[in-house]
């Protein structure tokens, strides 16, 4: 399972980083979201793989680490706020600049199609 989790996080990171390096705002926000999944999973997994445990006192047999969960819970909400903020920033940038390229301009020599 450890290998599988590592592969999942690796794929999410790769896909996130690749999209983050694109030139247009929308793919970048998709990349940011994928990267958020990867990071949240990573922090969550720092509590190790504990199937069938619990974080509620008196329920179930054995407890899993609640601290990474608390960290990730707020991280999920904050990353939503961040995604929303960047998305609206991108909308505003498009309105102001007339295009959705992160550099604020489309370089002619880059355009292949």
């Amino acid at each position, binding site marked *: *399972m*450890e*290998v*599988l989790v*590592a592969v*999942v*996080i*690796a*794929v*999410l*990171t*790769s*896909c996130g*980083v690749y*999209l*983050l*390096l*694109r030139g247009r705002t*929308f*793919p970048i926000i*998709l990349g940011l*979201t*994928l990267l958020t*999944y*990867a990071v949240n*999973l*990573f922090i969550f*997994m*720092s509590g*190790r*793989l*504990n*199937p069938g*445990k619990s*974080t*509620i*006192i008196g329920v179930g047999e054995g*407890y*899993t*680490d*609640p*601290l990474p*969960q*608390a960290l990730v*819970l*707020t991280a*999920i*909400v904050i990353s939503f*706020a*961040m995604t929303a*903020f960047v*998305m*609206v920033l*991108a*909308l*505003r940038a*498009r*309105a102001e600049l007339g295009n959705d390229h992160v*550099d604020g301009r489309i370089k002619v020599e880059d355009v*292949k199609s």
Partner: protein
Amino acid sequence: MTLLSIILLPMLGALLPFATERYGRTICAYSAALGPLCALGILMGSAVSVFGGHVEYASFAWLPTMGLNLSLRLDGLGLMFALLIVGIGLLVILYARYYLSERDSLSKLYALLQLFMMAMLGIVLSNNLLLLIVFWEVTSLVSFLLIGYWSSQTDARKGARMALAVTGAGGLCLLAGALLIERIVGSFELGAIFAAADTIKADPSYPVILVLVLLGAFTKSAQFPFQFWLPHAMSAPTPVSAYLHSATMVKAGVFLLARMYPALAGTDGWFYIVTFTGMATLLFGAYNALFKHDLKGLLAYSTISHLGLITMLLGFGTQLAVVAAIFHIINHATFKASLFMAAGIIDHETGTRDMRKINGMWKYMPHTALLAMVAALAMAGVPLLNGFLSKEMFFSEALHIESMGMFSWIFPLMATLAGVFSVAYSVRFIHDVFFNGEPIDLPKYPPHEPPRYMIVPVEVLVALCLLVGILPNFTVAPFLDAATLAVLGENKPDYHIAIWHGFNLPLIMSIVAMIGGLLMYSQRTGLFAFYERKFRHDEKIVFESRVQLSVRIAQLFTDFVQNNSLQRYMSLLIGSAIVVIAYSLYPMTQLQGSIPISTVEPVSLLAAIILIVGALGTVLLHHNRFAALLLMSVVGLIVSLIFVRYSAPDLALTQISVEVVTIVLLMLALYFLPQITPNESGAKRVGRDIALAGAAGIGMGLITFAMLTRPYESISDFFLANSVSGGGGANVVNVILVDFRGFDTFGEITVLAIAAVGIYAMLNGLHLPLPQADGEGRTWDKEPHPPILAVMARILLPLALLVSTYLLLRGHNAPGGGFIAGLVTSVALILQYVASGTGWMQERLKWKYRRVAVSGVFIAALTGMGSWFFGYPFLTSTFSHVHWPVVGDFELASAMGFDIGVYVTVVGATMLILAHLGKLAQTSHSPRPPTSKTYTDTQVTRGES
């Protein structure tokens, strides 16, 4: 305190001239002299005890944690230098009063001079190396300002910049050296450094320290090959040249050599570097001085040469050589300052400094001429003048160096050669200026003697040259003794200064130098022609081209990393992060830790495959934005399943509700953006990005695997043990959020509210081009709100609100809590917006969401502040069990109030973001052509939410 006041008096004095300049230049000069005069008095008062071998200390804490203390010492070396600085400073103040023309601001010059005096005194009185460096830098800065005093002249500006660049770079080297010394010694205090001298010299980093400290000293004292800045510093007013660039500041370098002598000298490295640098400087300066037609240029190169002589003596490392070095510092300061002043008078009276024009001045200004000639003879080393005494000692020491074996003859030979040149340029100074026929078209004609008081400083200095030269034991001996004691400590040699040592080798060397110098000067016509042909180079041009080159290199680098492309920055940032992380992980020898790997279950494998397909699909289809978005939502759902699988119900609930909200948000935003991402990345960029992404992914995967297979210790046992007893809740995750780490959560919801308000601000007044059709050319549906969905959504709303209330209330003891409940409520409300439209919702729900978000933060804050009333810190929680009829016993925790604050903030922030984005679509996208009435509606509703 008295020691501190020596430094502070000139600093306070720096302000006085500004106040007094309006009352006339003489008053201004008097007021400027006030501070230094008091300092001189204090110094004189301490002189007697210092002569007795006593060292005065004073120390005030400044930044003790950094080892920087205002720690001062007054020993013989410091006293000698301090007297030179204050004494010559006073003479320069008097001289400058007459030198400076009415157009120039006298108070500015005085202020800078006294600021410099303060810094220079600070250098020589510091008992702390770091403090010394602080003052050292101040002298470099003031020197920059003084060289550039006539800031309208290009030469002055360029000369100032060059001086600052060279001495500033040296200062940085010195600082690095000092930091290394501190690492060995553990203190910047000079006493501690001297005590640890053997440890420093035995340390492997000693050569580095030595080179760094010497670089600092050599740049400041214009030693070869850093000498080039000094001639260009001559663009400064002559009082500045006399004071800073011959008598004091350039001596700071040799002072540092003398100061650090007990700690660093006595090694081979010191001997070879210092001696040969000094020798090269001595010869280079003496040789060039002969060929300068500029009066001040000649004196500048002569200064370089004499500084080289002092450096060479300090490099010899014998005790008598140190005595000779200190003696020559005093002598050079007196005769060179007087020569600069004389040169300034001549410049002042004739309007030029070109020796080819200035001839026969003896006839026009015999008084000045006489003084200048005596000083020049001292410079040449003629008997009965002070220069002779120290030069004899120099020759004698050069003869005694035997550490080079059979090559030791090089020192007396080179010393004599330099002596020949120095006689030659001194003779040139006398003959060319005061005799040699009649002046040739002077700008001011006829020249005459300067104002009476302008000559007084020269007279004082020349008198000192004579007194020291004739009666050394009654004048300079005690100062020299005390200074030597400070440098050499107990090893102070027995020596006797005398004019006549008998007919010995040094005297023969002197005579050879005299005759050789005269012969050389007699052959000047041929020599000048030879020099003109061979050695015409301008350091300024070289320096400026170097500056230009470094600017160009910097520009190229800047263009590479900062080309105004965020896309480029992102790749550089990610690349750097990969490099930094890879570098720090490199020592990891074993990837897999001690925890055995668990088996893969088929269901998990299937989920992982779906997730990977979703993620890769998002990338592959990212040009089709809508498809990519849908695929990405698959990833989010699988992530929430992973949370379920690994015992995190709270996270799963949060993730799935955030997922819904996020996807709705992105869909809304996509409406305003192009539906297709153009394919504009070249193969090269795609390849680079794949490499970066692959490296990042592989790195993260390896780190994850390494982490998962290693055991760890967590602080969570504390939370598990204290959750019920301390926080009154069984759901540890929730208790951590609202109780243990409540302050973090408070910060978190504040950020959430700020982000929402920021989004509100950005959306305000936003106008976007409206798409008439979707990505595949289909026009938008005119009837966007299907009735079935609307009806269903309305039925669902109360149920959803009930569920969210339940999640909120039970959060403390079971999966749920403010974040999750808030998100569920938001999803239910958003569904109404989607199903029935923004307008429909606005008629029914007249909340301003930004107020909701902010009041959530307030509720949380007030709950936290509540604990103040009971004398507890912010956010201390309490709980108790309450009995209610019918309902029975239940627990009431103050953390619940905080969680309600979280709930309200989350609802407010989420709705603020989505409702406004939705309204943007709703109000902008109008199926009918806009009439004036709908236009007004839009106007009215814009501010509402």
